[in-house]
């Protein structure tokens, strides 16, 4: 169990040691986003911009224009919707090498309520040309994703959660921008793509990101107990989207379930539907927040209330298979 944001703080320091061009900006939330760890290690390369996110994004773009690799962090609501135009005009249009790493994404922000629960951030970032969008499933995948983002030239949005989450990233697996990973069963992405049609015979294939990977693993266990064969793929890289793996899974399955801690509009579920509708029309069930705002509660209570836990997902998948 570890919070992805703790892993973010650690990997930032590692990257800071390896590359003097890495700089970090925050908007008065460094103790929550964990950029404070970098600030302590590299005070000269850390810029607290105060409660002024629009300026932070512009300053990050200016730093990038002069060859720096800026990581700009705050909560996901403030890192996207609040500064959408700054990201669009100053960063994405110019193609600047800015890494936006947002924490406190999704419902599991918890008691702070709807104002602080970003449920639209992935949709907003996904629609921007040239933007890479990553939602890692746990601490290990976060570390790898942040490293990959630092090595990628171009703007990147990474969304992390607030709470500690179980370690689910398969041992020995590698995160790559544009590629998903198989979390269940124990076969690789390449094996799924290479498998002849209808040989794997999954009843249901889960395509999930963030904390929903763990919930889908739980749902799979419940389904397997009832003799329903399931696979779980982690699509941390929402954009670029792993169309090869998505299509291969659809060809091997009776049902595809896309699951995310985000609105069902415009996020991972949207990407899955776009891919399949155009290339291989298949039955898709979207699990996410149904076009509504969140509310206060514990992360667990909220996931349960919004139907985003393993048992609820298993029930819905079973009903859809009938």
């Amino acid at each position: 169990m570890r919070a992805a944001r703790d892993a973010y703080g650690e990997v930032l320091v590692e990257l800071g040691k390896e590359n003097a061009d890495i700089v970090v900006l925050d908007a008065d939330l460094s103790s929550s986003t964990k950029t404070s760890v970098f600030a302590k290690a590299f005070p000269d390369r850390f810029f607290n911009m105060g409660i002024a996110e629009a300026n932070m994004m512009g300053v990050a773009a200016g730093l990038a224009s002069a060859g720096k690799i800026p990581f700009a962090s705050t909560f996901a609501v403030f890192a996207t919707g609040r500064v959408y135009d700054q990201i669009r005009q100053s960063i994405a249009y110019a193609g600047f090498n800015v890494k936006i790493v947002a924490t406190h994404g999704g419902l599991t922000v918890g008691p702070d309520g709807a104002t602080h629960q970003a449920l639209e951030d992935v949709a907003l970032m996904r629609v921007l040309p040239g933007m890479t969008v990553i939602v890692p499933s746990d601490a290990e995948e976060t570390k790898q994703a942040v490293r990959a983002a630092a090595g990628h030239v171009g703007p990147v949005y990474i969304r992390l959660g607030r709470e500690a989450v179980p370690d689910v990233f398969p041992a020995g697996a590698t995160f790559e921008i544009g590629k998903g990973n198989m979390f269940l069963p124990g076969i690789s992405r390449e094996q799924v793509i290479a498998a002849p049609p209808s040989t794997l015979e999954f009843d249901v294939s889960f395509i999930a990101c963030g904390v929903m990977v763990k919930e889908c693993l739980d749902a799979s266990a419940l389904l397997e107990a009832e003799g329903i064969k399931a696979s779980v793929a982690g699509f941390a890289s929402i954009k670029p989207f792993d169309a090869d793996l998505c299509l291969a899974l659809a060809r091997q399955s009776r049902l595809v379930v896309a699951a995310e801690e985000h609105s069902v509009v415009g996020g991972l579920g949207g990407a899955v539907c776009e891919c399949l509708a155009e290339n291989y029309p298949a039955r898709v069930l979207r699990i996410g927040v149904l076009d509504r705002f969140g509310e206060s509660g514990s992360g667990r209570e909220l996931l349960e209330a919004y139907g985003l836990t393993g048992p609820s997902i298993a029930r819905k998948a079973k009903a859809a298979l009938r």
Partner: protein
Amino acid sequence: MWKLQSEMEGGGPSIEYVEEMASRLRYHIIRMVGAAGSGHPGGSLSSSDIVAALYFGGILRVDPRNPLWSDRDRFVLSKGHAAPVLYAALAEKGFFPVDVLLTLRKMGSPLQGHPDCKKVAGVEVSTGSLGQGLSLAVGMALAGRLDKKDYKVWALLGDGECQEGQVWEAAMSAAHYKLDNLRVIVDHNHLQIDGPVEKVMSVEPIAEKFSAFGWETVSVDGHSVRELLEAFRRPSAGKPLAIIAETVKGKGVKFMEGVAGWHGKAPQGEELDRALAEVTMREKAEERGQ
């Protein structure tokens, strides 16, 4: 032909030379906007002396043969709608052929309606959504300090643009980080699309605002090359410098001067002929004076 290096005096370019270049920029602006059939002549003309002083007054250290030279000074046109004046200056400076100017706003042209840094050498950042350029300039200034470079970062803002809150977020951060390598020029032409800035949403007292935010400030006549160059050459005072340049919107074309309607409208037909006659006459008069 237009004189370039030959105009230089011992201590740098002469005031007359910079004034000639400003006239030349105005001539290009009217020709470009006229050919495009759309664009923003008013705020381009009000900025012409400022931009000419920066690019041709020995202020900006840039090299058209090496546009990404890491030691270059950076110029950010935050009021991106004044793209024609920037394009004209870059073309005259040799970043791209002058002929290209007449493709402004046309399909396939690198000269987009608002500056695109991916398409035009010498354009540092993409601007057009107002209020964002000063933040970009702050980032460049921070990078220059980190890299121990001595380059300066210049940002040209409109006065109406100062209604955007982000300008003040950026102003606060520039003073907080004591960015004495950063200089802002406000093209204070007193007009915006809907009318006088004073009536739409007053930004006064603008110099005092920057001063209260922790900046060094100076007010100049934005059409006096001598005053502009003096302000531009001021030594750093350990904090960012804001130069409030009093200007006239549409300066150089009599019927456009002080008329808000010429913010974003291209002169066409007889109006274009009249505008061209004014800027061309000026140019010819100067040529005769050579």
